[in-house]
């Protein structure tokens, strides 16, 4: 839980904001994300707003798309609200850490076995979406939300709804450059190969703390698959199912994404997840009249 800033909204529709999800100064967060609560105190949600400088109409259209999906491994979009100029969506809260917060809690790049599980789960989620013709289009470190039961992909459609990384508007929330495949940065349409490129950037980030590391920085065991994902040629990138097979040889396909049982996580990461949960449990709506 990160404290609200001066310029954060106090209310979003009939929701009262409690805190920010992302730490101050987080880069590459393609949405504004708040922990919020119904004014009657009954339900707590994660509420998302389009990034400053983005196209709210486009963003709302993407959110509407996402609300129709119940893809395993995707963070669900529950309720859509607001106006075309000020849209928002919310989904029931559950403890979740954006990948940058996971690295911060762990104290640096993650160990290789954990990257394999997280990356394999994300690859499986993308594989099952791609089979149905769904392209995520917003895979990036901040878009990966780690729950007790594994990682989920949020920020669906962010690439389509956000200003391109090159534009100077909205420094804080622009897309992470390293997640944008060269063909997309050149203005090409969002497609499956772009998701794979971004997945490679997420793996690189988990392993080094950067989305565009030098190849020597990537642990040897992960180097080939990360570099293959980040191939400049879209044709040269592997299918997500192949990424899964490389990361977790022998894993039963269909058993990872969208799981409902807790996965093994390092102590400090569990500590951060449970601390967030405890803080939100203990937090109260600000008293009336303020």
């Amino acid at each position: 839980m990160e404290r609200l800033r001066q310029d954060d909204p106090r209310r979003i529709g009939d929701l009262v904001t409690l805190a920010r999800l992302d730490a101050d100064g987080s880069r590459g967060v393609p949405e504004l994300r708040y922990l919020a609560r119904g004014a009657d105190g009954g339900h707590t949600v994660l509420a998302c707003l389009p990034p400053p400088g983005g196209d709210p109409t486009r963003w709302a259209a993407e959110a509407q798309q996402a609300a129709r999906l119940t893809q395993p491994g995707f963070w669900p979009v529950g309720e859509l609200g607001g106006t075309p100029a000020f849209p928002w969506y919310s989904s029931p809260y559950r403890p979740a850490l954006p990948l940058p917060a996971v690295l911060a809690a762990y104290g640096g790049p993650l160990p290789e076995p954990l990257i394999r599980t997280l990356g394999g789960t994300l690859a499986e989620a993308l594989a099952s979406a791609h089979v149905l013709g769904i392209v995520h289009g917003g895979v990036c470190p901040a878009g990966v939300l780690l729950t007790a039961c594994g990682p989920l992909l949020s920020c669906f459609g962010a690439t389509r709804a956000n200003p391109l990384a090159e534009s100077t508007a909205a420094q804080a929330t622009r897309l992470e450059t390293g997640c944008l495949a060269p063909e997309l940065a050149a203005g090409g349409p969002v497609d499956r190969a772009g998701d794979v490129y971004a997945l490679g950037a997420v793996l690189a980030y988990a392993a080094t703390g950067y989305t565009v590391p030098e190849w020597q920085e990537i642990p040897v065991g992960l180097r080939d698959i990360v570099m293959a994902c980040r191939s400049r040629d879209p044709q040269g990138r592997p299918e997500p199912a192949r990424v899964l097979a490389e990361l977790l040889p022998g894993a039963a396909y269909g058993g990872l994404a969208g799981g409902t049982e807790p996965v093994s996580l390092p102590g400090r990461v569990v500590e951060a997840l449970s601390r967030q949960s405890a803080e939100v449990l203990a937090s109260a709506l600000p008293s009336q009249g303020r």
Partner: protein
Amino acid sequence: MISALLYDDPHTVGPFRILARLGGGGMGTVFLARSADGRTVAVKTLHTRLAADTTLRTRFRLEADAARVIGSEHGAAVVDADPQAPTPWLATEYVLGPPLDVAVEGGGPLPEPAVRALGAALAAGLEQLHRSEVVHRDLKPSNVLVTAQGPRIIDFGIARAFGDEHLTNVGSAMGTPAFMSPEQAAGLEHAAAGDVFALAGVLVFAATGIGPFGGGAPTDLLYRVRYSEPDLGQVPESLRPLLVRCLAKDPAQRPSITELRTALGAVGGVPGDRRGFADLLPDAVLREIARRSDEVWREPPHRLPPPVPAEAPAARPASASGVSRRRLLAVSGGALLGGGLLGGGGWALFGGSGGGGGGGTKKDAVDRPKPPAALWSTALWCPDSGGEVMTVGRNLVMRAGIVLCGINAESGQGTWQANIEETWRSATDGTRVYGLRGYKDAASLAVCEVAQTDGELGKPLVELSAFTGKEQYNQLLCVVDGVAYLVAKAASGERWYLVAADLGTGKERWRSPVDGPPMNGLQAQAAPPALGGTVVGSRVVLCGNPADDSKFLGLSVHDKDTGRQLWRLSVTFAGTAPSRLVTDDRNIYVGAEDLTARRISDGELEWVVGMKGGSGNSGGEERRYSMPVVQDGVVYCTDGDQGLIAVDALSGTMNWQEKGLSGRKSTRDAAPAIGKRYAYCADDKGVRAIDLQAHKAVWTYEATPVVLTADSKGGRLYVRQEKRTIALPLA
């Protein structure tokens, strides 16, 4: 553990709205609750009937005081309390971590650094308590919650101020014998040094999984606590001298709590680094902490309805509190027909087009769709029971006689085979395949994973010596969330039990007595004990297997966490018995001479379609209704030979029935399969596809189907015939 509220639990306590139950005991109940400002808390109440006892009320007030004294670092932060209320209550933060006994049970004894860190933190908590001149007096593993930030001490039920003698009748020896101090066991004053003794016992437990004086009957334990030397054989060497001193019979010989804290923190501990504590915990404990952190945010389980006597379901007055719309739709025993009961709302799948006129029939006649071509067809015998096609990851598993076959879903080719001896001795959780170890050579009951490479049974995931492994009719019902549910025979005697076995920890969770396999006189009938068993929310539903000549079906429902039987009924059926258990999250559906829905919550009849002994062409041999299938709130089954019916699962209202079918003989034992556009029924001509909009058959795939299984994820309809299995595209 979060569990459903009972029907008579309060809706509010003080300013808090009650959400779920966390635990209960002789003195009161602990609830999960929410304040108007959205804070989620644990509320402990003292039973109203005990609140008249001023001693208990005073003790409750002291508990609230003690909880405040220990504070949020070492205990649970107190949010609010009202010891003067008619039902006294205490609201604290909801602490995210398992009790130490649960943690050790799940993850095994803690490694030494964790024991030290745990001990140092607990000692610091007790130190703070003692500084305020309060003694805990009941420190034990179940009163220590293990969070990711460190242990928290809870439950000060018998804590009291130093020298405050009159509160407890000392001779009554409150507390828990296994972790009691010798002075407490002797009925003498248990002062601060008594807490040191108890803490050492807790640490011995944390390091070994058993208390320093073992287990057994309370009287034996009390004797050993007072007169025997503690058993520290399993305790790590470096901790032993310190713990031996703490466990001295003479309170004066024990170190002070401060000394103990310093000694524990000095060597290898992690003083001051509360975040580092989590790194010392075993993976299973971390997963349990993570699970609790996540679980508390899920929708709480529904409040349980009041218990009802098993005989005639009586009409309940509508004024009873918490009567839901569903309850009002309940019918008592008799028949219900027509759509008048459904009070609007979005439950009927087909809305306006549901009941009557079907447009577009002309068009159907012009470009009537043709049956699809089979994607593959493979030779495989279908057994009498358990012939459903199971999906495991992206592959298929089918039973064929005494073997279990792994099938490539793309090609239909077999990839492995496992010998499971009987169809009822295997199950899957959708990811892995499990089987019972062979009964010919196994002494004890064991659940093994079936390798999806070569079909070999792996090493037992759980082995239960309390149950015989030599029993052919032991049955593996299902595996859900890492827990296997079985019906098994005790190692000695003739009793049969429903057993929950944790595949993660390899331990039995609970057992509950149930009926064994059906008997003809003294002869076993070559049939498993149950038609099926399944987990529905927080409950386990079991449907017994009726004997050939029986007209009673035994249904029982058990609490998933404790195994406690919530209800049990013998329901009569006419015609042949159903061949398996069909449920959704509310009801159990039985198709026989009538089609009934019975509530899982209390076993009461929710609705009935068709009249017993009414029309139908069953002649007592074949039942009228087929095995039902329930999907998206609609129950589908065939009615005699007149075709498919779709019934609203909530109300029992007929949504629609198939039109224009004649000359087909339904296969009653095969439940229909449902796709997005078509429902598929098995009859003597083959597989009939019925358009879900037009309610008419559009094509027939010629076959002799025995079992139909729809795989909506993979988009396949699997048709099992006696000797061959076919995959069709599911539309």
